[in-house]
C-alpha cells in the first residue's frame, strides 16, 4: 500500500470501525452492503471515460494502433489488448512514477485475467488484414484520486471505456491490398464488439472473516484484516476472484459474496449503459448541428453560455502600438496616472458574478461599452516593448506582477506545517 494510505488510520480509528461494524454501522453512514454513488463521464471524442466511485476517481483512455499481429501461427488473425494502470502523482505525494507499485501490478494483472483472458473483446474482429495488420488496443488507466475500492473503479472505467470506444474504420482494397484508415469525418468510427461485461466488487474483511463490508473506504481498507475482490459479469458468471490478506473466508461467505456482487454488477452495468445512451444522443445532436449549418442554431448557441469579450476591430488594436509613438509624452503621462487599466465593468456584472460561473445566458455578459473604452484606452507601453523586441517565437517573461496581498485565510489545511 502507499505509505500514506497505511498511515491513514490510527489505532483508535481501527478499533472504532470494527466496533461500529458489529452494529452494522459504517463510518460514512452506509450499511455494510451499500455502494457509493457512481458517476460516469464520457469524453466528447469517445477516447476515454472518467468515473467516480464516491471520491475515488479513475480515468481510462483507449488508443488503437495498427500493428503486425503476433508471430505465432494461431494468432495471425487476432488483434491484441493490453492494460497499463497508473496510480498517478495526483493521488499522493509519495507515488513513485518510475516503478510499478504493488497496487498497479495487482490491478493490471486482474484486468488482464478478467478482461483479456475471458474474451471480453472480440479479438478476431480487430483483424484488418490477416497476417499483416491488426488493431492493437492499449488501455491506459490513470488513478486520479484514491478513496477506497480502487479495483472497482478501475474496472468500471475500463469497461465503460471499452463500450464507449470507437475505432476508425479501415478498409482493404481487394485488388491492391492497400489498407486505408478512414478519418472520423469520412466514415463513422466503429464500436468494439464485446462479448460480456465483467465488473469488480471489492469487500473488506474484519474479525476473522465474519464481518464483510462492500465498497470499502480508504480507512476501512486500512483497518481491515483482508480484502476479497470478485469479478462477475452481467450473466452471473464469475470471471475472477482475488483474495488478499490473512483472513480466511468460509465457503458460505464466498457464495454470499458472489451473490451480492452479481446484484451490484447489474446495477453498475445498467448505469454505464444509461451514461452511454445520454452521451450518444448528445453526440448525435452535436453532429446534426454541425451539418445543418450554424445559422439555424445561432439562437441555441447564444443560450449555451458562451461568454462574449468585446473586442475592438483588428485595425484599432494593431494601430494602438503605432499611435503610442505618435502621441508621445501625453500618452505616457496618462499611462502613468492609470497604471492599473481596469476593464470598466459593465453595469450589473459584479452582482452577477456567481452566475457567470454557472452557464448563464451569454446575453447577460455583454461587455458592449468596453469596446469604446478599450479603443480610447491608453496605449500599453509594455506591449510596445514586447512588439519591438520580437525576434523569435517563444518569449517567457516571468513575473513582474504587482505585489499584492494574497491573504490565504483560515482555510489553510496545512497551516501548521509552515
Amino acid at each position, binding site marked *: 500500500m502507499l505509505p500514506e494510505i497505511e498511515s491513514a488510520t490510527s489505532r483508535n480509528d481501527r478499533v472504532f470501525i470494527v466496533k461500529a461494524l458489529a452494529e452494522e454501522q459504517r463510518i460514512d453512514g452506509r450499511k455494510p452492503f451499500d455502494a457509493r454513488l457512481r458517476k460516469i463521464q464520457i469524453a466528447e471524442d469517445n477516447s476515454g471515460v472518467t468515473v467516480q466511485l464516491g471520491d475515488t476517481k479513475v480515468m481510462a483512455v483507449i488508443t488503437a494502433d495498427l500493428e503486425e499481429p503476433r508471430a505465432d501461427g494461431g494468432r495471425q488473425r487476432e488483434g491484441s489488448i493490453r492494460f497499463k494502470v497508473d496510480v498517478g502523482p495526483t493521488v499522493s505525494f509519495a507515488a513513485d512514477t518510475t516503478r510499478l507499485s504493488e497496487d498497479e501490478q495487482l490491478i493490471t494483472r486482474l484486468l488482464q485475467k478478467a478482461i483479456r483472458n475471458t474474451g471480453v473483446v472480440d479479438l478476431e474482429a480487430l483483424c484488418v488484414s490477416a497476417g499483416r495488420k491488426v488493431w492493437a488496443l492499449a488501455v491506459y488507466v490513470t488513478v486520479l484520486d484514491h478513496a477506497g475500492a480502487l479495483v472497482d473503479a478501475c474496472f468500471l472505467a475500463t469497461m465503460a471505456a471499452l463500450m464507449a470506444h470507437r475505432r476508425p474504420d479501415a478498409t482493404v482494397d481487394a485488388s491492391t491490398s492497400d489498407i486505408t484508415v478512414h478519418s472520423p469525418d469520412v466514415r463513422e468510427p466503429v464500436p468494439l464488439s464485446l462479448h460480456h461485461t465483467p465488473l469488480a466488487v471489492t469487500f473488506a474483511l474484519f474479525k476473522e472473516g465474519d464481518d464483510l463490508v462492500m465498497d470499502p473506504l480508504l480507512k476501512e481498507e486500512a483497518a481491515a484484516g483482508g480484502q476479497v475482490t470478485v469479478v462477475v459479469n452481467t450473466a452471473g458468471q464469475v470471471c475472477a476472484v482475488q483474495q488478499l490478506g490473512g483472513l480466511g473466508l468460509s465457503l458460505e461467505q464466498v457464495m454470499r459474496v458472489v451473490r451480492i456482487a452479481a446484484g451490484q454488477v447489474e446495477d453498475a452495468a445498467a448505469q454505464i449503459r444509461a451514461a452511454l445512451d445520454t452521451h450518444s444522443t448528445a453526440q448525435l445532436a452535436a453532429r446534426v448541428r454541425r451539418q445543418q449549418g450554424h445559422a439555424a442554431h445561432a439562437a441555441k448557441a447564444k443560450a449555451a453560455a458562451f461568454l462574449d469579450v468585446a473586442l475592438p476591430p483588428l485595425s484599432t488594436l494593431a494601430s494602438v*502600438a503605432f499611435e503610442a509613438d505618435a502621441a508621445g509624452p501625453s500618452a505616457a503621462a496618462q499611462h502613468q496616472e492609470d497604471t492599473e487599466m481596469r476593464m470598466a465593468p459593465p453595469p450589473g456584472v459584479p452582482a452577477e458574478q456567481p452566475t457567470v460561473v454557472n452557464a448563464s445566458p451569454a446575453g447577460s455578459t455583454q461587455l458592449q461599452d468596453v469596446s469604446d473604452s478599450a479603443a480610447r484606452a491608453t496605449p500599453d507601453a509594455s506591449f510596445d516593448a514586447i512588439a519591438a523586441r520580437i525576434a523569435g517565437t517563444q518569449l517567457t517573461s516571468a513575473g513582474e506582477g504587482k505585489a499584492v496581498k494574497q491573504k490565504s485565510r483560515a482555510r489553510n*489545511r496545512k497551516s501548521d506545517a509552515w
Partner: protein
Amino acid sequence: MDQRAGPGPGSSAPRRADGRTATQLRRYTCDLGLQEQADGSALWQQGGTHILAVVHGPTQPTFGPSARRADPERAVVQVNVRAKEGIQGHQQKAWQQFVRKAVEGIVIAKLHPKCLIKVVLQILSEDGAVLACLLSAASAALVDAGIPLTTSFVASSCALSSEGNILLDASAREEQEAQAVVCAAFAYHLHAPHDEGPSVGQHAMACDTSGRLSVASLNALLQATRLSCAQIALLAHASLADVYKS
C-alpha cells in the same frame, strides 16, 4: 474552422464550427479542493479541455531526483504534465518547462528553503487552448494550496485565422488551421477593499506563440488575449470566493 456568413436570428456575425462568434469564449468552470490527499487542487474545464491540477507542498524532498535538487536557500518547484495516455511526449515536456518557469515567477520561494513544491497537471481531455488551461489550472491549484504567491494569473489563447480574423479561445481544429496561435498569461488582482471585482494587469507573465505573424498582428493578439483573460479572471475570482463562503 468554418465561418458561415449566413444571417442568424438577431446576429449577423459569422459563426465558427461550434456556433460561437469570433469573440465568444467557451463555457468554462473551475472547481477547487476536489482531491482528498493533496494540499491544493483545481479542476479547470474550458470547453472540451479539462485539466486537473494538484499541488503538494511545501514539503520535504526525501527521495528520488528531487532530493538532489534541494536548494538550501529557496523552495524548488517541480511540475509534472501528464498526458491522457500516461506517456509523456516531447510536447508535454515542453509544456512542463514552460509552466514551471511561469510558476517559479510567482511563488515566493525564499519563504520555504530546502522544500519542494510539486505541481502535477493531469490532462483529462484536450480541445485547444491546452497550454492556457495548464497555466490557469496551476495557478488556481497553488492558490487553493495556500502557497505564498506574489500574484496569481490566468491564461488564455487566441488564434489568427488564415483569413486574418482573430478567434478567441480557439478549439483544437481551429488551432490546427490557424496561421498563428498566441497564448499568454496575465496577473490578476483582487481589489478587496472596494470590492469592484478583479482586474488584469498590464504585464504578461508568460507568452508563447506559434506560427508566423506580423508585429501588428502579435500586438493585436496579445491585446485580445488580455481582454479574454479579464473575462476569465472573473471566473477564477468567483470560484475562489465560493470556496471561502462555504
